[in-house]
């Protein structure tokens, strides 16, 4: 991973840019490193928050973390993870409407597992990208 104009950007106009590369370009070379490190940290925080909310059956908190994940995944260009987050958010809202704010989140289990895996994969990619940006 390189910011715009880096040595690995030999033919940037031939291949479509990797989503994280696009993000680095959007932030600019001076900020891309900080952005990637913070993005990885935010994803970690969200992963922990989702797991804790699911364990406690706290659908309101789960929905809130899913909402953040939607924005993070979308920003990082991970459409599949963003859709999973949207499903979690909608499921949490539906659960709150049906059973109240504290309820078993069993039905969201499969989505949670996929989201967990998706977040882990994205964190790895972001960290790789951050390392690639290091001077």
């Amino acid at each position, binding site marked *: 991973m390189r910011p715009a104009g880096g040595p690995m950007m030999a033919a940037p106009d031939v291949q479509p840019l990797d989503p994280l590369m696009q*993000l680095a370009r*959007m*932030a*600019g070379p*001076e*900020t891309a490193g*900080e*952005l990637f490190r*913070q*993005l990885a*940290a*935010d994803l970690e*925080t*969200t992963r922990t*928050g989702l797991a804790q909310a699911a364990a406690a059956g706290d659908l309101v908190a789960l929905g*809130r*973390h899913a*909402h*953040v994940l*939607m*924005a*993070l995944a*979308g*920003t990082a*260009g991970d459409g599949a993870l*963003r859709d999973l987050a*949207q499903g979690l*958010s*909608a499921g949490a809202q539906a659960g709150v409407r049906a059973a109240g704010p504290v309820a078993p989140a069993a039905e969201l289990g499969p989505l949670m597992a996929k989201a967990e895996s998706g977040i882990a994969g994205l964190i790895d990619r972001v960290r790789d990208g951050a390392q690639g940006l290091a001077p």
Partner: protein
Amino acid sequence: MTPPAKGPQHKVAPHAPRPAILLVEDTLSLQVLYRSVLRKAGHEVVSVSTASDALESFAQSRIGVVLLDLVLPDRDGLSLMQDMLALRPETAVIVMTAHGSVNRAVAAMRAGAHEFLVKPLDEARLMAAIANVSSTETAPRVAAAPATSRSAVDSMTVSGFIGSSGVMQRLHQKIRSVARSMATVFIMGESGTGKELCALAVHAASPRAAGPFIALNCGAIPQDLLESEVFGHMKGSFTGAISDKPGAAAAADGGTLFLDEICEMAPALQTKLLRFLQTSTVVPVGATKPRKVNVRIICATNRDPLEAVRRGEFREDLYYRLFVVPLHMPPLRERGEDVLEIAETALARFAREEGKPFTGLDGPVKALFRALPWPGNVRQVLNVIRNIVVLNEGGLVTLSMLPDTLDRQTDTVAPPRAPSGAAAVAAPQALALDDLVGRALAEIERRVIEATLERQGGSVPRAARVLEISPSTLYRKIEGWAKS
């Protein structure tokens, strides 16, 4: 949830040349990203993570634009926005929301936000939104506010946007409130209710009043020409394009673009309109480079837009982009005495134009006007008054001056007054031919009419329908009997 950082993290320079942007975003990576994009573009940015820090920075710094996440850890972003606008109404607020939460963004627009952006933010879209709100924010809106409100009232009066009924007073108030925002206005109402005048009133009361107001009827222009009309074309881009044409969107730069009958727009052009709304750029037919424009959109329809969405005739995403502040123009039949205000104002104006000394409407005409359902709304009243002024010499408008076209509107119209001629005659008995033979034709006519009126419960329109004549003809006859 990202833990909120403590305190404002980036202060604006004490003597910044232009107001700073207050970025309120609690997810730190997104805050880093948006701040960087804005700074690359030369903006001063104050970034915070909580509502309380946002309010503190807003009070202490020279903030012109607020970029606001609606979901904050310590408070709802919507109520924060309302507090900020209460402190400084001239502030331009752009709200941000995650994909799938557009309804909340629309609610924010209705509460006074200028724009909304859906995350993930596209750089071009973010910069377009900032440019749009900055151009209105730099106008002297505070100083101009009382003047624009006054000019709105004047505009309503001068342009014929008349009516002091409660429903219209509430509409005027809503127009004044929405005018100062950049929010897209969606005007609905039956044909002839004054939707374009309403759009003009919004424009006249807005900070863009000095800019152009460009109206385009999407239903009146052939679909194959509509793209060129809206976005313009380059010379030679198609047969007949003999010169460059800027198009309505470019012509409205700095002002307001009014798209009437928006639901009639073809699907392909809806896509282009959506793109235009998202990027604030136009690409004329045959051009290769987009052109940036700064336009406020007002649109109107006499259809139910949501029904058009359900039927697949109107894009749902475009609907949500446009249907931000809906205004409903009430039909004239629900506006009480407004019909008389409109008729008398139009009479005075048309009489002046035609050089004829009309003095007003007489009692029976007023009663009839109040009772008629006016399916053509204000436009119909204006046509009737124009007809009267053109075909008569002046004086007080009486029933005999009314055009024959004012007929057969509904069965429910009560007679404007008791038919005095009929009252002077004994209630007609069942008519036998033998009773009529030997009488004058005029008297036979009168007896038949009176009997028909009696049978129709005194309803002139119903009686007129039975007799197959116009109600105005019937009114004229009744008035003539009263005089004699």
